């Protein structure tokens, strides 16, 4: 696998100032609390987490849709956080987004042909005729009839709209596609179609995906490597199969144990670990490890000292004082 790193995030922090009524003073709502990760060229890195964990905010920070509060984001070796909007433009073309809500992410007043053509027009790529031809080609690529160019978004189903969104994201030939919950709003059978499409497109166009979702099954299916987020931090990151079979972090373990699973084989089910309580307020973070109030394995040190995000074994990162399944991880060379 090529070691070429396409996107590198170092200690990205995104916080919002908010006035808390109960405390009477300003406090910080930290949506992303120091995330470091690398996305390798050609891979699919999945980011999974529950609602409020900050994964969408992280995605937006990485593509510079939101300014980071602190930290670095390098794309193709170029530091993005210090660039002006004009300087960002050529890099923006290389990073595209696909959004969750197929009903809200397409402008209802534009024809779908225009929606897909817009990125090319804005960046002045090609003549009108060339753009038109490319739009038709993109439609065919995503499995839609090019004759539907002149129709409006509301005339299409959810799955079809999502395909249009994907076609739009591909129009500039990006190297990185950040997909933020692209299939959550779709029916099961439609979801399968769109996921298969995305996999095919990745092979055909040599795309790199940053795939964000809350559905553990979807993330396992598409990802080469997976990062698990909790309360704005990545608590575990590593190769997908290993992470799912032998998770290191107690949160990952608990999460995987409670996913409702099809009992189509007699294989033993994971032991269920039900995490009690609710996710804490990001403006009122627990001391030490963010997960310790709900963690079944927490001890004193977890409340006082924040665990570092370390590479426990090659390619397997975790931020925990008491990681699980350590013995079954591949031993270091």
């Amino acid at each position, binding site marked *: 696998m090529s070691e070429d790193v396409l996107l590198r995030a170092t200690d990205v922090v995104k916080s919002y100032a908010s006035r808390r009524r109960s405390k009477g003073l300003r406090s910080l709502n930290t949506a992303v609390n120091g995330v470091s990760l690398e996305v390798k060229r050609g891979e699919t890195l999945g980011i999974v987490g529950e609602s409020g964990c900050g994964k969408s905010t992280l995605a937006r920070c990485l593509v510079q849709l939101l300014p980071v509060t602190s930290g670095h984001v390098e794309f193709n070796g170029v530091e993005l956080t210090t660039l002006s909007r004009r300087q960002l433009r050529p890099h923006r073309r290389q990073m595209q987004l696909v959004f969750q809500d197929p009903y809200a992410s397409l402008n209802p007043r534009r024809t779908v042909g225009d929606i897909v053509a817009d990125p090319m027009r804005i960046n002045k790529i090609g003549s009108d005729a060339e753009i038109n031809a490319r739009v038709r080609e993109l439609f065919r690529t995503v499995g839609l009839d090019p004759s539907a160019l002149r129709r409006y978004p509301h005339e299409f189903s959810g799955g*079809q709209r999502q395909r249009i969104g994907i076609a739009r994201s591909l129009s500039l030939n990006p190297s990185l596609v950040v997909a933020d919950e692209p299939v959550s709003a779709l*029916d099961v*059978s439609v979801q*399968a*179609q769109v996921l298969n499409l995305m996999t095919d497109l990745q092979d055909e166009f040599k795309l790199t995906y940053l795939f964000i979702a*809350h559905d553990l099954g979807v993330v396992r299916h598409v990802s080469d490597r997976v990062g698990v987020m909790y309360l704005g931090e990545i608590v575990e990151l590593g190769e997908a199969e290993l992470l*799912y079979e032998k998770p290191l972090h107690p949160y990952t373990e608990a999460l995987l144990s409670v996913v409702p699973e*099809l009992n189509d084989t007699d294989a033993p089910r994971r032991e269920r670990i039900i995490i009690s309580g*609710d996710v804490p307020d990001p403006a009122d973070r627990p001391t030490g490890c963010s997960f310790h109030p709900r963690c079944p394995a927490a001890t004193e040190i977890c409340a006082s000292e924040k665990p570092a995000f370390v590479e426990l074994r090659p390619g397997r990162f975790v931020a925990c004082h008491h990681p699980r399944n350590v013995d079954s991880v591949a031993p270091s060379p």
Partner: protein
Amino acid sequence: MSLDDSSTNAVLSVRDLSVSFATRQGVVQAVDGLSFDVGAKEVLGIVGESGSGKSVAMYSILGLVRDANVSISGSVLFEGREILGLSDTEMQSVRGGEVGMIFQDPMTALTPVYTVGWQIVEQLRAHNDMTKKAAYERATELLAEVGIPNPKSRVSHYPHEFSGGMRQRVVIAMALSCNPKLLIADEPTTALDVTTQAQILDLMGRLQAAHGSSIVIITHDMGVIAEIAHRVVVMYAGRPAEIGPELDVVRSARHPYTWGLLGAVPRADVKTRRLVTIPGNAVSPLEVPTGCAFAPRCQYRMEICAERPPMRGAHGHLDACWLSDEQRLEIRSSATVRGES
């Protein structure tokens, strides 16, 4: 429990339920010939995608469909009593009193201007002769039963002061407040996180055992079905495609749509290669074929599928498909069904 048995033991017995809407574009057949039973203390799962009619079916059973253009036919026996033709006033005593219902989005399910205690008390006093004081005490007990911490103080809190998972618990408490024999849950965990979902499903299981009620759970998630349901109804285009014990349906599904549904789900417990896709798009409710509704998208269709297949089978496992058992055996053994090739 086969449909042929006399359903005297069944809490809910639905026969040939059909629901249609007269719209300007034509007649929309939302539900077409649905029949099933729910036994005592049983959990029945109804699974299907959007447009399958799963929610409309249960809403119309309870008289919650308020569209003037709707027409409902069939028979629905609740504890032996026909409830389909009842007037709205008569249904009001059934709803909430004998059948509880919980809905998908807990964030909008409660009236924002009244405390949760007030809302539970309202339901209690609508069906029982209780003093306000007694009702508030009972409401506090119910909140404790569903796992809400500090119930004594929380009972006078407003819905917006609770998180999504907590609100769903309140809704469950409210639905169970009058000890109904049947609880209908419409996508109760879809809007919740996985960890919260686990808590809620766990809670529902415990309460069901404690109260002895039956549950009908509507969902699109086969995993949830596997988690909690004893029996399953798979619906497509308003029609039942397959009915049977949960384990049978998951392990030896008979209907091609069920195969498609099972194969399309990416799993968290095993690595799935290529996902099975059902070709084409969901059928428009205005254009449901007269024959088998699934035939246009089915790769095993035959000529006879132009005729609507009857629900048939054995040992409580039924399906609406013309494929014979031998044909099924052949198909399954070719291993293309689960996307394993």
